[in-house]
């Protein structure tokens, strides 16, 4: 980010985090122009009257109070993912990935979960490569005339008819596999974007009260994984101190037991700490309410199962939908009632404010526009591979992806990146 230059590396000044926290506060303080986060927000520094509505529309520096609801980010990303699932045009897919990537680049924080985006991109590329490799090795039902090369074919017995190993590889089948892989990759990257932008811990905190404690357990488990990795690294380096090579499978096997032991000890310690801090305190609930809760929750879940079966099965679609709806309603009621048993309150829950609504709406808009585009331009969105044609970028479907860029403008700007690698 541009503001990194404002806090030059100066290790004598103390830990990097303290400096950037200071920078954050400076940036958050409208009276101090030195902290104004870049050229886009000079309006906040001026008196309110001068900039007026423009100042109000500018994206503020993110802090806890104005953070977007994580659900909004997920809705936005799922919208993009739905859009991606509706096309195989590599140019449109590229555009969707580009939109997601731009928003991530503009709005992701320095938090550990934000770094997962790169992993998802790599996973996407791996999926593309894998899809092509399978297509080349196993052949493809796509008829083609442009033979690229011919692999030696493995003769298979008669009972394995329909399966081919090796053989002709045509340009058409490779292009088809590429398009298909790209679609999957785009879906993955959209999920990765949501992962990078929304704090998973806060998302779990938005669960209903009855599920809150399960959510806390997941949060603890998530902070656990990095600790485990750190343990492995520490013990591996400690092996060097014993004069044993730190690498290799044997090293990992050898430290496995101590690592697990350490993890177990830590989990006991965390459990003790949670207990001593009031985890699992429950309010007294009349037995009638408790029983109703159980009946509603179990009955609701049963209803959901039966309803989904009805919807998916060949017959009975008529009562599937109402049953599903009734089951859902009962389950929600059960969860609500169950929440009464929990005395917990929420500290500063994320609110679904106007900016969250806009972010969510932008994603949904992309999805809806793309589904409609399938009606008027199906050919452009699914370019044929037989015969091979160069895909075109259809104007209107391309434009309908662009609302997805809205979060890059309206979501709160994350504070200056920390320079530390911690």
């Amino acid at each position, binding site marked *: 980010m541009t503001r990194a230059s404002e806090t030059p590396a100066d290790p004598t000044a103390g830990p990097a985090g*303290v400096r950037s926290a200071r920078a954050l506060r400076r940036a958050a303080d409208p009276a101090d122009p030195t902290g104004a986060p870049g050229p886009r927000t000079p309006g906040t520094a001026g008196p309110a009257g001068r900039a007026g509505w423009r100042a109000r529309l500018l994206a503020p520096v993110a802090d806890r109070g104005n953070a977007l609801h994580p659900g909004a980010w997920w809705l936005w990303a799922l919208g993009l993912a739905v859009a991606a699932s509706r096309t195989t045009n590599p140019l449109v897919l590229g555009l969707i990935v580009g939109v997601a990537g731009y928003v991530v680049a503009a709005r992701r924080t320095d938090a550990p979960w934000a770094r997962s985006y790169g992993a998802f991109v790599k996973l996407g590329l791996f999926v593309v490569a894998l899809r092509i490799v399978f297509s080349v090795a196993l052949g493809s039902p796509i008829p083609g005339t442009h033979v690229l090369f011919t692999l030696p074919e493995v003769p298979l017995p008669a009972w394995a008819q329909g399966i081919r190993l090796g053989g002709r590889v045509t340009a058409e089948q490779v292009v088809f596999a590429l398009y298909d892989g790209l679609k999957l990759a785009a879906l993955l990257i959209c999920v990765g974007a949501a992962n990078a932008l929304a704090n998973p811990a806060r998302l779990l905190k938005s669960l209903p009260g009855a599920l809150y404690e399960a959510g806390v357990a997941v949060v603890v488990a998530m902070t656990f994984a990095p600790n485990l990795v750190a343990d492995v690294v520490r013990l591996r380096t400690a092996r060097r101190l014993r004069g044993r090579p730190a690498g290799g499978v044997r090293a990992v096997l050898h430290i496995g037991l101590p690592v697990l032991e350490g993890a177990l000890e830590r989990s006991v310690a965390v459990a003790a700490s949670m207990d001593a801090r009031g985890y699992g305190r429950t309010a007294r609930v009349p037995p009638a309410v408790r029983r109703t809760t159980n009946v509603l929750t179990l009955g609701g879940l049963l209803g959901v199962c039966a309803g989904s079966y009805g919807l998916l099965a060949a017959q009975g679609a008529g009562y599937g939908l109402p049953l599903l709806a009734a089951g859902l309603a009962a389950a929600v009621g059960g969860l609500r009632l169950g929440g009464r048993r929990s005395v917990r309150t929420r*500290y500063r829950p994320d609110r679904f404010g106007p900016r969250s609504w806009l972010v969510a709406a932008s994603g949904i808009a992309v999805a809806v526009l793309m589904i409609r585009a399938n009606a008027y331009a199906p050919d452009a969105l699914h370019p044929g591979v037989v015969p091979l044609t160069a895909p075109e970028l259809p104007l209107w479907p391309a434009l309908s992806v662009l609302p997805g860029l809205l979060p890059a403008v309206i979501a709160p700007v994350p504070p200056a990146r920390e320079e530390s690698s911690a």
Partner: protein
Amino acid sequence: MIRFENVSVTYEDAAGPTLRGVDLTVPEGELVLLVGPSGVGKSTLLGAVSGLVPHFTGGTLSGRVTVDGRDTRTHHPRELADLVGTVGQDPLAHFVTDTVEDELAYGMESLGLAPAVMRRRVEETLDLLGLAELRDRPIATLSGGQQQRVAIGSVLTTHPKVLVLDEPTSALDPSAAEDVLAVLQRLVHDLGTTVLMAEHRLERVVQYADRVLLLPDAVLGTPAEVMAVSPVHPPVVALGRLAGWEPLPLTVRDARRRAGGLKARLERRREERDPAGALPRPVPSPDRGSVPDPGPRTPHGPAPAGTRGPGADPRVSAPAASGARGSGDGAPASGKGRGGGFPLFRGRRAPAPGAPDGAGAPLLDVDRLAVRRGRVEALRRVDLRVAPGETIALMGRNGAGKSTLLSTLVGMIAPTSGSVRVSGLVPHATDPRTLIRRVGLVPQEPRDLLYAETVGEECAAADADAGAAPGTCRALVTELVPGVADATHPRDLSEGQRLALALAVVLTAAPPLVLLDEPTRGLDYAAKARLVVRLRALAAGGRAIVLATHDVELAAELADRVVIVAGGEVVADGPTAEVVVSSPAFAPQVAKILAPEPWLTVEQVEEALRP
């Protein structure tokens, strides 16, 4: 507020009860300090107050513990959560959430406080503990002192009437420890919180206590009364007992006001022993009081009377662990470190790398070392030379780069620029099997070094790793900690025993350079004293020792030279007496009391007073 009525706690498969017949009443608003050697049940007693013993740890509790009228027998820890705040030894094991603000709110959420109340209390607590700037930071990125403050803050927000702390300052550097203690004192004074705290580093905490509880006999009394009889006591008390001061002083300030007579006696003694007064007095350098003092880097005054050759072992003649270190020549502190000082000075004058001459070939030669991690410069332009037989203390605040430096010396981190030579080898490019015969590191958590199920297996593995004769490690263990059975699991050893085992494993390969990272964390005074004896014996045997420590008393007792690291740079490097006495943060208690006289430890004073 807290009542123990004839409480005994027995853990399963323990030989006897951990606590036996404790009767105790702690009134509201007192700060009570638990003292006693390791393993007398301090943590158990603290756990009994919060209800974690026996509800969480198992074991049998007989008798009755009540906190504000609630019996812990019938109340689970979570039902005491609004009353008792507990912070354990390891703050990292305490955290449930991932950011500072969430952590502060967690306890209140569990209790179901109203959102407006929670918000207000979080802001108050952020201010009280000076955490406002860190509110959005992930907890994992905080330093040890910050984490400890967050841990304390996270239990304060529920406004508990009782605060239970297990070794709150052990892992902290001196100034971070003072921050934490200042907060505790403020709580006691302003909010009337009852604080029950166990701590090994008494020199830091005893002056804050209203009363002291001495275990295992559960003697409760004023600090002065208990300290007069306690087997564990800070140096100021030891000096007071030695000098026969009555009542016993607990703070450096009290002791200083009484120290006039003692100082005069010491002065006389020194003149008797060194009538010519020829020895240079190391302490009164013109710029006392500032740590980044270039003074110690240049030799001032003439060479010490008993001129020693450069790099000669200053203590080969001193009987190991006799406590008579350096006292042969009148000015005890000035004698130490001279031998070690010379290679350093030579290095300053002729910085030609790799040109060790004659007998003074340094074991360790660090030349303009820099280490970067991403954009962070963890170390910059570090120069360090260590000669055989020297003991060097690395000091500096948490996160200053001490551990990074030690890791670089054993090749766990490759230098970004500059060079490290250990007995002429480049550590990170050397095969670990060769390297362990040149340099050994006992890490901060000695357990990291130990893999095996039993002490016996561990020793056999260490012999195999080092290529030593079978039985070498076992013999070292027996020498360092007599009475540890082969079949014991390393986890069941006490902190001190585990440290000794790790040290034995490292020494099996007989490296001439031994590094220790925070060796006294969690050790009581007795274990620390044993460690000091062992390390002195090693140094007397010609080994060089480098220890990174926050423990100023340890540095004063052991080190010939102190190197202070700040922000990845060496800001002071010189004989212990010069560097340590001139610093308010790093001076040991005896030095503060007897300044400007050059005494650092009670042992030296005792030796000097001996007829």
